[in-house]
């Protein structure tokens, strides 16, 4: 097979001109040196990683090298990098980008990451990989710079969108790619429209709830790899409970996705030490909680059951969280007189609450740790309250929220590192900040989705963490919180597990979205008995899978 040869004629033209005009000529030494440099930097094989030679100061782990090699040579540079949280997906992506740049295969690259990570990515690519990556700040950057880091939210909005979609990217990297699991979102649509040759999707949680999620991710990289939507549905969907096609699917997915587990890396990892801390409500807190619970159970099965459930969860966090929600309800226009009196009644209870028992416990723990601590809460109002309360107790803290602008997030992280003892983060802040300099975490309230909890822990339990990681899980006694903790976190031993196994479990439960399931059971059952039955069912299901796992492990 013969190919046309593209000949660069620039040199020839220069030579003929010099020949005619008798110069100017180069020095023999520089001519010779240039030839030798060329010879010494020549890449003579398709295989192998050149980039290692270029990165003498970077500690690269074996699993990371293997990922880079695999992606470039065996996966044609299109892959889902799905290592567990904290194994260094950024390093893997950086290595691949570097290698493709050295080999002249990538010039123009776009890196889409959560807003909070834009500066960090740009910094790491520059510092660790000597790749001149530019954080997108001005509009002209899209066209004039070769390697641009941006948030997807910026890139997908006009005026940026049109410019970005006009570029021919050699490589697109998307961090936290599980956000693209839903094909009907604007983000998904946008990424689909990007013109790209190579593409890397980074996520620690490629499947969170449903098998279609992996279909959507794979179809971004390689449409047709898992068939089209219709066929995929027929083949692998829930109707086919037996999963006769499971093995086949796994093979297909594995040819486009790499997933390393902590256990596979052969590295020594700091331990996770879990403290489940049960907290007694004070008398007044208990009264508020019971009042809300009574309202909820009396209205069980009705249309507002879900919102009442939220209220009950909030009561486990802080009276401030409850207050903010009630206040919002009061402002609704079509509020009934009945509801209004109910709210007034609850407001009365709120005013009687004289302390926050969890907050007291938190202060006690923070003081005894005497080192940096991250507190996660689900509620904004709790976050604000805690900030105030810690200050009253002479503890320095900084807040962290998903809604912060990029610069503010960087600043808060820096403040936490250098000045403050505590960082108080809401859920949305959980993704995409790396805080391995801190080894203590308080889960002030618990998310109902186990994967989200894993994301939280991954902020500190990652490469670079040198100490054992201490996780303090708060739950208030005799509340819905305790129920959930027992169910999810003690039954499936979530905290000791690593997320890899957790995916396996979730994949097997397949159709069940745990969070939705619980919410559903609690909100829409017609009796207490039904709730118990449903919860029992879920518990059974989970422990069955657990036992399967253990048998499997034992058989190995």
């Amino acid at each position, binding site marked *: 097979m013969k190919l046309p040869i593209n000949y660069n004629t620039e040199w020839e033209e220069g030579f003929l001109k010099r020949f005619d005009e008798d110069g100017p*000529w180069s020095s023999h030494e520089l*001519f010779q040196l240039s030839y030798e440099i060329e010879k010494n930097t020549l890449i003579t094989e398709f295989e192998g990683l050149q980039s290692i030679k270029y990165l003498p100061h970077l500690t690269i782990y074996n699993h990371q090298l293997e990922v880079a090699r695999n992606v470039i040579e065996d996966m044609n540079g299109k892959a889902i990098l799905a290592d567990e949280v904290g194994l260094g997906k950024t390093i893997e992506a950086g290595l691949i980008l570097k290698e493709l740049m050295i080999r002249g295969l990538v010039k123009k690259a776009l890196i889409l990451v959560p807003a909070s990570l834009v500066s960090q990515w740009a910094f790491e690519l520059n510092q660790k990989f000597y790749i001149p990556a530019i954080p997108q700040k001005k509009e002209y950057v899209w066209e004039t710079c070769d390697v641009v880091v941006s948030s997807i939210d910026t890139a997908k909005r006009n005026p940026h969108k049109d410019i970005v979609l006009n570029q021919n990217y050699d490589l697109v990297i998307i961090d936290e790619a599980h956000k693209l699991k839903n094909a009907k979102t604007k983000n998904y649509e946008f990424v689909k429209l990007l013109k790209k040759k190579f593409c890397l999707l980074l996520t620690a949680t490629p499947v969170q709830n449903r098998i279609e999620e992996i279909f959507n991710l794979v179809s971004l990289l390689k449409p047709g790899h898992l068939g089209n939507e219709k066929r995929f549905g027929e083949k692998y969907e829930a109707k086919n409970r037996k999963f006769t096609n499971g093995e086949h699917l796994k093979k297909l997915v594995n040819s486009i996705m790499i997933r390393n587990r902590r256990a596979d890396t052969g590295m020594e990892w700091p331990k996770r030490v879990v403290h489940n801390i049960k907290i007694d409500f004070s008398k007044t807190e208990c009264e508020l909680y019971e009042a809300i619970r009574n309202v909820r159970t009396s209205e069980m099965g009705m249309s507002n059951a879900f919102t009442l459930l939220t209220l009950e969860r909030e009561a486990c966090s802080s009276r401030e969280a409850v207050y903010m929600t009630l206040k919002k309800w009061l402002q609704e226009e079509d509020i009934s007189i009945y509801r209004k009196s109910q709210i007034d009644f609850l407001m009365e209870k709120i005013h009687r609450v004289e302390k926050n028992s969890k907050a007291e416990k938190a202060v006690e723990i923070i003081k005894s740790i005497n080192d940096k601590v991250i507190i996660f809460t689900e509620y904004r109002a709790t976050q604000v309250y805690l900030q105030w309360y810690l200050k009253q107790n002479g503890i320095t803290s900084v807040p962290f929220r998903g809604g912060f602008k990029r610069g503010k997030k960087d600043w808060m992280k820096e403040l936490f590192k250098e000045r403050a003892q505590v960082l108080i983060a809401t859920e949305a802040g959980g993704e995409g900040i790396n805080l391995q300099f801190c080894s203590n975490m308080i889960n002030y309230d618990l998310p109902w989705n186990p994967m989200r909890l894993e994301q939280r822990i991954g902020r500190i339990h990652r490469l670079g963490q040198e100490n054992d990681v201490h996780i303090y899980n708060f739950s208030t006694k005799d509340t819905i919180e305790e129920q959930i903790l027992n169910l999810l976190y003690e039954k499936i031993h979530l905290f000791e597990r690593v997320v890899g196994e957790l995916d396996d479990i979730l994949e097997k439960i397949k159709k069940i979205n745990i969070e939705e399931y619980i919410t559903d059971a609690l909100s829409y059952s017609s009796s207490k008995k039904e709730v118990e039955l449903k919860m029992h069912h879920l518990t059974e299901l989970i422990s069955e899978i657990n036992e399967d796992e253990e048998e499997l492990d034992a058989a190995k």
Partner: protein
Amino acid sequence: MLQNDIRKILERFFLANKCTILNEGDNTLTVQLTIEMDKLLMNRPFYWHYLEKTGGTPQPQKVKFAFEQLEDQKIKAEQIHFGSPRLHQIFNSTRDLGSYVRLYEVVNSSGIRTSLHPWLNINAKIEYKTNLSKQQLLSIGINLISGKIVFDFIDLVNRRNLTSKIPDYCFTLSPLITPKSGINRIRTVIEHVINTNDNNWINDANNRIDHDLNLLNAFYEDETEITEEYTREKEAIQELFNPQINVEPVNGGIFYLKSDLSA
């Protein structure tokens, strides 16, 4: 490339560019740049612009390169290693500054008039590219009188003594083959080398295109017309795998040599 090789390259580069080596420590190299090198490497156009406007005395910078992490953090030095952007800047400058030569063989003629044969040399880098890439470097010379072609030209002439000024009592023969057609003959030789190489990689690349296009067609099999989306994906696949061969001369020149070259 070892740190010691890098040191040698830096020394050769700066000496060839008339810079002064001020100090050579165990782990460091300190260079006094010339005005030209300062302008070329140090990226401070405002300083030079200012100086031109005010007519001050130019003070080109001194640079200290460190080949290992220095223990004394206070010493201001540029870390240099194979991946450092500075080294690649120097590589690129070397290439720009060393593209074209005209050299003569040193002949001890003892007063006898000696003729020198013109040779055209091209050192070309061939790039084989699909979703992977590799390179090959060829050094080819052609005698512009006889038409004789030799490979590894640079290695052969390096055994001889070369100079940039024509030696006494020597004269150069005029080419019978013009440089232009010499260039074309070298191109033909390069093409021949490429075509006799193992070219399985081209078939492999085409197979990958077919494979992915088949998947793509299956993905859109329910569409009744060709959508923009389909076209975009199709182009991306071709763009990714499309096998290409690119040839780019790195440097070369005209050499006047006394006797014939043989390997």
